[in-house]
């Protein structure tokens, strides 16, 4: 074997090995990260009661209630199965709103309310101006009937 072929083989094997390692890492990232607990896990008492953890899900439509002090906000986080009441005092991020993804860090109180120290909002892949987004929404609700009609 010529030295150049040998080196080519060596570099090829190295890159192949790195590829396998990357695949394993990505698979692990997608299945194993306990970045947050879902409301179902909290209701099932899988989340710790004595230390800080994160809860993640969607803010339930119509559940956001500003308290009389003007700074505290109560809302429910849901995963479409269970819901957990969250209380937060402070300034909410801009993308926080009904039916938006949210991650809150804090402790679970004795009363079953989650007292958050930090509330993070999520964004999504849609980058549309408001009027286009509104038409898209109506188009989406219209599709089932038209789809049936064309089939």
């Amino acid at each position, binding site marked *: 074997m010529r030295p*150049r072929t040998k*080196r*080519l083989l*060596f*570099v090829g094997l*190295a*890159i192949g090995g*790195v*590829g396998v*390692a*990357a*695949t394993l*890492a*990505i698979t692990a*990232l*997608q299945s194993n*990260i*306990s*970045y*947050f607990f*879902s409301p179902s896990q909290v209701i099932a008492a899988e989340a710790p009661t004595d230390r800080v953890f994160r809860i*993640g*899900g*969607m803010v339930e439509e119509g559940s956001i209630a500003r308290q009389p002090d003007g700074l505290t906000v109560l809302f429910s986080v*849901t*995963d*479409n199965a269970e819901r957990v009441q969250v209380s937060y005092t402070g300034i*909410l*991020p*801009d*993308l*926080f*709103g009904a*039916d*938006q*993804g949210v*991650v809150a860090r804090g402790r679970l109180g004795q009363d079953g309310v989650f007292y958050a120290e*930090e*509330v*993070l*909002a*999520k*964004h*999504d*892949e*849609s*980058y*549309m*101006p*408001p*009027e*286009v*987004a*509104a038409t*898209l*929404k109506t188009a989406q609700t219209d599709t089932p009937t038209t789809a049936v009609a064309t089939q």
Partner: protein
Amino acid sequence: MKVNWFKFAAPANFYPVAGWLVSVFAVLAAAAILIGLYWGFFETPSVLGGTNPQKEYYRIIFIHVPAAWMSMWLYLVLAGWCAIGLVFNTRLSYMMAAAVAPTGAIFTFLALWTGALWGRPSWGTYWDWDPRLTSELILFFLYLGYIALHSAIDDTRRADKAAALLAIVGLICVPVIFWSINCPDPTQCAALHQRSSLSQMESNILSSMLIMAFGFWMYSFAAAFARLRGIILEREADTAWVQELATKEARR
């Protein structure tokens, strides 16, 4: 006419070509970035709606996303030149790798920095240990590690080989960054970043982002070739053609 392309693998022959390429790519970069910024600032909606109602600050994506793309792409280029250098023992490939690394590090830093500025108003935090942020930070350290390892070894040829191995091992980071968020259900997603989809972007926003990406790409070419010229002169300082060039410059 048959051109012998391998001629340009010799630093002495590539040096003048690189000088010419720098000016071409610099002009292209300046034009694309100017058009991209104008389009991004004046021809796009000022607020977003629907499920992602961001305000004016969403315009950071015109710098953030192209910079993040370039940070990953330049790492592939860096590792590619390192692999070619290891296999064929060509000096110019190692010089290319060394010329690309600082630009890649700059774009990685830019992606992290603009991301932090955007994350504060939208997510509510400058930094979070989300998988994509963490792996991008590791990529930044890999670039710094490559540059540091290369400059820590005095013998240039050994420095080239050691740093090349580090670059190839670090390749693991790029697919991890790229696929760290492919989770379709937002209630299950273990990340603040969401999967991206170019088809769900308004056409003006998409165009200005792609033009900026093209501009950053051209800038990378220009910066890498300019740096390469310096590296060639430095490493070939003892050769006849560099001495000749130096006396010619001195006489002028």
